[in-house]
């Protein structure tokens, strides 16, 4: 998919039959839309968003400095932000415009994907102003209203506003409530659009996610809300859609008839580092399984959407999530494995165990590893297990989706020294993005020996290496109003429904025997047993 094509389609909302009939009869005009503009055709690839003000809450935080500002600066560098773009950085710390710009400049030097030329950096920083205030301070919002209005008057008269909440989730309801109180959410006719981008985690369980959705929904319509899961902005994840639905040869074999099982791995070699306090409250299930991994699963398992637009795409993903039966409490211990790393060696360096990390409880029961067996109970996938694993302090950083196909139905080459291995399609998401297909080949010689060989596609060998960062993609999409790669409220809740029984069972269970895997290993032994029970094993990465 090209993101921009999706943007085009998503804005082409069909008129109702009544609307069309009345328009035909000359009694009512069909509402005109920007997508009716014939000059737009073919221009979507580099469409510049409408002039707007971006309001960044949590502007002084780590996420803003590491990800948001560098992504915005790259968009500016590549001329993808409108000349009238302006950012109001909202934070509690006592900065003024100049000192905050200097702070952002330092962050850009440290975190930019492509170094900015000084003049480009200067132009970018000039467009940032600092607005000091606590998130619950009424006066700060009132002055924010005036600031946004002034910018609108200066430039276009149309006050488009993108709110970005790069704050702890506990601040979301307060900020959204204040935005609503000031009327900054109102999209009055001709007065510009208003959108809000929310960072994960979207709640910490099903109940809190539902509550958060309701609180946001009291102020913003769902179409105005962009829940960001940066995994969906990664090139390879987006390419998964193109791979599946832009090629004719894979979809016919993408089902229980040919697929034996699917493995999804998100392995990290890093530990929790400075995020100990955060991770203590989160754990592997909430941090990765509930969002990134279930998103990957839904992209692998979804049916072709009716159109490449936000809602058809998300409709299909939700259907997959709803087809995954949450494991009954009694089966959680059988189908889901948790682990926590102890001390060990990673990449030749001795590392402490999780309980020895800064800001971590020495008796912590937080899981740093999770592996599970899930089934998508629908016509296409019934009986095909999806094995998901994620862990910290594993031997290497690797994210991969592996489609393991069934064995050949008849073993023809009885004389061969080994049976042909089943075909495997591996979609590598990071690092070294690419796609690998394994098949059997005859070893040259007089005999009939078969060895597995691979056809390997790497992105770097075919395309420009400077693919945009996921945040660049997603920020631009939000500015353009394309929600295809953002998570909808019902998706979030469906994903929480799947993991809720897992978290509930663990809460009620006796304390786990942690640590149960060594840093630098591939997880607890019980994770291997999860597959060996089905006569399968994890892929060696």
């Amino acid at each position, binding site marked *: 998919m090209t993101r921009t094509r999706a943007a085009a389609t998503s804005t082409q909302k069909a008129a109702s039959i009544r609307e069309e009939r009345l328009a035909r009869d000359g009694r009512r005009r069909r509402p005109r839309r920007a997508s009716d*503009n014939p*000059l737009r055709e073919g221009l979507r690839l580099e469409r510049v968003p409408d002039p707007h003000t971006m309001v960044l809450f949590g502007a002084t935080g780590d996420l803003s400095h590491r990800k948001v500002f560098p992504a915005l600066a790259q968009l500016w560098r590549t001329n993808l932000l409108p*000349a009238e773009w302006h950012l109001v950085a909202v934070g509690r710390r006592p900065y003024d415009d100049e000192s905050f710009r200097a702070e952002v400049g330092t962050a850009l030097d440290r975190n930019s994907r492509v170094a900015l030329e000084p003049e480009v950096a200067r132009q970018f920083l000039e467009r940032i102003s600092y607005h000091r205030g606590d998130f619950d301070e009424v006066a700060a919002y009132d002055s924010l209203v005036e600031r946004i209005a002034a910018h609108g008057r200066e430039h276009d008269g149309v006050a488009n506003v993108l709110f970005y909440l790069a704050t702890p989730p506990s601040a979301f309801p307060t900020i959204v409530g204040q935005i609503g109180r000031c009327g900054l959410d109102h999209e009055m006719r001709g007065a510009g659009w208003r959108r809000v981008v929310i960072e994960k985690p979207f709640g910490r369980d099903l109940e809190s996610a539902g509550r958060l959705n309701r609180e946001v929904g009291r102020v913003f319509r769902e179409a105005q809300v962009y829940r960001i899961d940066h995994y969906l902005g990664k090139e390879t994840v987006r390419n998964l859609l193109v791979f599946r639905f832009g090629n004719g040869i894979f979809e016919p074999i993408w089902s229980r008839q040919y697929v034996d099982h699917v493995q999804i791995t998100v392995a990290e070699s890093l530990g929790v580092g400075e995020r100990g306090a955060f991770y203590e409250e989160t754990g592997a299930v909430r941090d990765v399984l509930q969002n990134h991994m279930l998103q990957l699963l839904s992209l692998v398992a979804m049916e072709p959407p009716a159109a490449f637009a936000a809602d058809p795409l998300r409709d299909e993903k939700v259907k997959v999530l709803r087809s995954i039966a949450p494991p009954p409490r009694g089966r959680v211990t059988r189908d889901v494995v948790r682990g926590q790393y102890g001390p060990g060696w990673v990449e030749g360096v001795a590392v402490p165990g999780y309980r020895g990390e800064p800001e971590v409880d020495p008796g912590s029961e937080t899981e740093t590893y999770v592996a599970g067996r899930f089934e998508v109970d629908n016509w296409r996938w019934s009986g095909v297990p999806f094995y998901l694993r994620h862990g910290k302090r594993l031997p290497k950083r690797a994210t991969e989706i592996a489609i393991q196909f069934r064995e050949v139905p008849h073993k023809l080459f009885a004389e061969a020294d080994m049976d042909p291995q089943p075909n495997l399609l591996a979609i590598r998401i990071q690092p070294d993005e690419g796609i690998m297909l394994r098949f059997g080949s005859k070893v040259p010689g007089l005999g009939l020996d078969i060895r597995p060989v691979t056809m390997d596609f790497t992105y770097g060998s075919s395309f*420009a*290496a400077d693919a945009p960062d996921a945040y660049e993609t997603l920020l631009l999409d939000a500015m353009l109003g394309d929600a295809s790669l953002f998570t909808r409220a019902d998706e979030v809740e469906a994903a929480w429904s799947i993991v809720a029984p897992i978290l509930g069972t663990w809460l009620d269970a006796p304390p786990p025997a942690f640590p149960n895997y060594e840093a630098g290993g591939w997880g607890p032994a019980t994770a291997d047993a999860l597959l060996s029970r089905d006569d399968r094993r994890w892929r060696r990465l």
Partner: protein
Amino acid sequence: MAGPRSHHGIVSTEPAAPGEPVLRWASRARSVPEVGRELDRIWSTVSLAAVAPDGGVERRIAARSSVMNLVVIAGRSEVGERAASIVEGLTGRHPSRALVVSQADPDGPAWLDAQIHAHCVLPAHDAPETCSELVYLTAGGETGQHLAGIVAPLLIHDLPVAVWWPVEPHFESQQSHDLLALADRVLVDGSRWSGDGLRQLAHMATLPERFRVEITDFALVRQARWREAIASTFDRPNLLPHLRGLREVHVRYAARSVTPGRTNIVKPLYHVAWLAARCGLSVERPLRATDEAGDGEAGASHRAVLRAGRRLVRVSLVPTEADAPSGTTLAVDLRCERRRSVLEIDVTAMAEGVVVRATVDGEPMPERRFHAPRKREPDLLAQAIDEAGHDHVGAEALAQAAMILGEPRALAAHRRAH
């Protein structure tokens, strides 16, 4: 051409910094089969694939890129050297194999000289190196008359072939026909052609049907930001209906010469052609040079009349004295009338972008600025390599340009070709 010429094989096995191309191989050959053997030798040389930065053996060169063949018909050697240096600089966007072909000493004996280079780039620290080959061919004597015969055996099979003419092509020659028969895509820059460039443009519009090739004209690609700027005005739902009332299109371009036919007007014409194609306009009166200059005009302008149903659309391409290079668009002015409302749009170029000013019934609308530095040749080449698909908007603009020039068969030919 950049890079040492005296090597006969591996040049460097030193590790590269990510994103910085390194010359790994350089050798020479005197015949096409010899070139083929040298290219094979690059990938069968074990020591190139295994280096030992810390004493150990590590596989570093993993793959030749799998993107496309790029054939550069350079003509003169200095153009070839410039083109080769552009190709070398396309870090990470390299064609798999670039054949830069120059001719020399046409009246001398037949000979061929080839320099074969492999440039490699490390996309990231944890990614394998990816390489592309650059073969710089100089053909002397009669060999230079049979370029397609040199190029064809050296193409990587199953990869698309783009033929780039950095200088003015002679599409009507047999030599060009032979090369076009090999090509999937033709890259040109119509704004660099001699005279007004219109005859060659009309000729080029026939190529898609005759040779089943896609055309990428850098002159048209460069105007993307202008198109974005013009289109943005009609994104406003209340202004969109005015587009159906388009009445006038005036394009002002820089001209140093007052003599009609001396300034290349391919770029100004493309603005009109794109608008006409998108708005479905037909040609009432083809483009013709007027006899005399109007007020403030540096020379005689070109005028045409287009038609949308019963409505006529007047077109003029007006030369204006300016410091910009001749043929550069300075402004695109549109006038649209709908019922009694008049929308006037003035799009002008700045050093680093485009600015749109519009008025409705004399009332100014908010000004919009599009940050858009002029694209350089390497950017355009990289874009052409990246966007390998069918660009129907560009194809329609080219066909429409030929129609506006009075080639009524152009659009029919375009429809047959696509």
